[in-house]
């Protein structure tokens, strides 16, 4: 059965900051361009998760009058703290001793989901056609191998792959240029990077998993505008990670934890590290008496410039964290994602008007402040492969004394799926029981995400070898999917003394961690039926 097709000048995949900025900039440059944007979530913002302390630099360029447009950017950062945590003690690090990239006094505490909802309104007002609930599931190619567009997922397929009564075939969306803006580990971006060898000569990409909870806390503990970060406990010296706590409006705090997915101990559970972190006296005293109102998790990119793939290919561009433009020492990716989208839009416009090749994207990128920022940031993350203490000392020298201008570039040596040590050579970790006041189990956490996938649809987490989890991964690594998944999707269940690997795909919150960390790369994340996944409100 042939699918219907629709033609556009530009098709954008993903309604995050990079995709929406691409769309807005395109329509600003030429209002006559036909631009459409696909989003897999049921509405814009529903799959977005971020800290977020927002630097307005890119937005100042994109929509200079954003202050007059009722934007959801309201809470200015008023105070900063950085704490090193020991098991019970904490040491406050003077903020004047922080590298300038980690100073936030000009920035705002925002919800990125709400910023995206607002950006989508701006884009729609400019005539961009936005289609939430339509995941792009397949890349379409021309005969010459260039990207022709994408196809959306068929709707109404049952578990066995049969068409239900409600079956609705996917649509082909054809663009003169297709812009991929799926965010970290986009499942189409991943295919493009492989097909066009976009990562040739680059270091392996590095990832982290980020957790976020929103708490409504007691008045006396709330300090609107306060930004606090911590390093140290509960992670050991060899595991990269840290926390954030941002005091937003309405007595809310955005509390989160990021752990590098290059961790080595398969017994480590990122989720439980986050839960345990909240029991530290310095944290507990702030949230105690409050109420957790949201939970979510998402993988993020940490590789920086060394791991950034080439972002152009015939017929298509990669923007934002579908490529990996996050600035790790700044702990910010929104303004960089937006800027990459804006440069992509300029490129596309010149491609149409002046017949310039899409490779102009690279030159434009290299001449932008985005490249300068990422260049100066490049050595921070790899230095932490020497451990927290050496990493901090090196970062101090690199960022404070040399401002990122050291004459060498450190390399990322391993992909994250290669770093796990065998389970029997790694210490087991005893995580404390959840108290249901400060710490919670995964089930009640996932409940807060509003996650749902229409039942009776094919499992969207594909195993290349269905026997590998039990026959190999369980024996060697104690099947770490049980622990790295922040939503309890993967379980090993014993049935009549036989181990069975269970995938509760309806719980999936689309974080992509399994696709990244599975030691044999045996799990592939593909798009489920449109609208499925979490329904984040103010993340």
């Amino acid at each position, binding site marked *: 059965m042939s699918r219907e097709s629709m033609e556009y000048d530009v098709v954008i995949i993903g309604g995050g900051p990079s995709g929406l900025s691409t769309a807005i900039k395109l329509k600003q440059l030429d209002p006559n361009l036909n631009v459409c944007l696909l989003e897999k979530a049921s509405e814009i913002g529903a799959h977005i998760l971020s800290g977020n302390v927002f630097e307005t630099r890119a937005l100042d360029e994109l929509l200079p009058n954003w202050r007059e447009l009722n934007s959801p950017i309201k809470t200015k950062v008023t105070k900063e703290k950085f704490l090193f945590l020991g098991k019970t003690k904490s040491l406050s690090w003077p903020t004047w001793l922080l590298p300038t990239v980690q100073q936030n006094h000009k920035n705002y505490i925002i919800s990125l989901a709400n910023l995206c909802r607002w950006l989508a309104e701006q884009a729609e007002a400019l005539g961009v056609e936005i289609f939430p609930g339509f995941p792009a599931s397949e890349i379409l190619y021309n005969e010459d191998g260039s990207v022709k567009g994408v196809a*959306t997922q068929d709707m109404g397929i049952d578990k066995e792959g049969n068409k239900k009564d409600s079956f609705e075939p996917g649509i082909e969306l054809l663009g003169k240029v297709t812009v991929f803006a799926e965010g970290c580990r986009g499942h189409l971006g991943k295919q493009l990077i492989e097909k066009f060898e976009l990562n040739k000569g680059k270091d392996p990409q590095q990832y982290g998993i980020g957790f976020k909870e929103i708490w409504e806390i007691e008045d006396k503990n709330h300090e609107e505008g306060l930004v606090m970060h911590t390093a140290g406990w509960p992670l050991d010296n060899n595991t990269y990670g840290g926390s954030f706590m941002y005091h937003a409006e309405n007595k809310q705090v955005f509390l989160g934890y990021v752990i590098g997915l290059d961790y080595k101990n398969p017994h480590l559970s990122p989720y439980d590290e986050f839960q345990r972190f909240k029991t530290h006296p310095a944290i507990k005293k702030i949230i105690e008496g409050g109420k957790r109102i949201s939970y979510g998790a998402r993988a993020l990119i940490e590789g920086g410039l060394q791991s950034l793939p080439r972002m152009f290919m015939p017929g298509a561009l990669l923007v934002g964290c579908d490529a990996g433009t996050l600035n790790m020492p700044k702990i910010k990716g929104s303004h960089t994602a937006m800027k990459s989208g804006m440069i992509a839009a300029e490129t596309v416009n010149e491609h149409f008007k002046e017949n310039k090749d899409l490779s102009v994207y690279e030159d434009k990128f290299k001449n932008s402040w985005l490249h300068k920022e990422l260049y100066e940031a490049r050595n921070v993350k790899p230095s932490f492969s020497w451990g927290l203490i050496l990493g901090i000392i090196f970062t101090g020298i690199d960022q404070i004394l040399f401002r990122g201008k050291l004459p060498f570039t450190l390399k990322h040596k391993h992909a994250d799926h290669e770093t796990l040590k065998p389970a029997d050579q790694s210490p087991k970790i005893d995580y404390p029981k959840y108290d249901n006041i400060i710490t919670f189990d995964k089930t009640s956490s996932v409940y807060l995400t509003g996650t749902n996938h229409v039942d009776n649809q094919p499992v969207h987490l594909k195993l290349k070898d269905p026997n590998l989890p039990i026959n190999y991964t369980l024996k060697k690594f104690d099947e770490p999917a049980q622990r790295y998944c922040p939503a309890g999707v993967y379980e090993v269940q014993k049935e009549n003394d036989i181990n069975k690997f269970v995938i509760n795909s309806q719980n999936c919150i689309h974080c992509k961690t399994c696709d990244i960390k599975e030691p044999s790369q045996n799990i592939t994340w593909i798009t489920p039926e449109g609208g499925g996944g979490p*329904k984040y409100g103010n993340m």
Partner: protein
Amino acid sequence: MKILVAVKRVIDYNVQIRVKEDGSGIATDNVKMSTNPPDDNAIEEAVKIKEAGKATEIVAITVGEEKAQETVRKALAVGADRGIHVKVDGILEPLAVSKILQKVVDKEKPDLVFMGKQAIDDDCNQTGQMLSALLNWPQATFASKIEVKDNKLEVTREIDEGLETIEINVPAIVTCDLRLNEPRYASLPNIMKAKKKPIEEIAASDLGVDVAPRLEQLKVEEPPKRKAGIKVANVAELVQKLKNEAKVI
């Protein structure tokens, strides 16, 4: 035959409802909203009847704030021909909605009015019944099957004892159960086409309906938290606990 279908915008059924801290209501800021699920069944049934050649026009109507129009737009994307949005801000009770629908029925003169059996936000289950009384039309509530027969409807109803099949004269009100059908997806081309279909906007005041609430809401609070359970070692302990602690046997 012309069918008027009423749709309501409610908090999406997957979202965990959160009560505002001051007990004044439910938090709705940036919460995902959707069409009330049984209203989707009502639209689907109307579209099916039209596809079977038994109806000529489907008009989707919603009553509510600016953004409620999204639900009409969605109805247009799955097969309604045109829309009506009666704009009202603030709390709306079923009686006010029924009176507004009555005025619109007077003007539009549909043969059938479909809607969901109840809305998942306030669970009132009143609007269809009240409209039936106001119009003095027959009603079939909790419909799980509808057959159109000349100037009559044969409707199967989901009732406590099982299924009840009744026959009613047209014009009539039917409130729809989730079992009635499986709503279709809005396809991308149809969403595009729906953007061009007309939606008439009417101010509630122009209809001369007093929408002021008749009820005063005192407080909204969460149900008490369930206490954690315990594990017992054996049946004897279970019986002992049921007897002495729970005092239920």
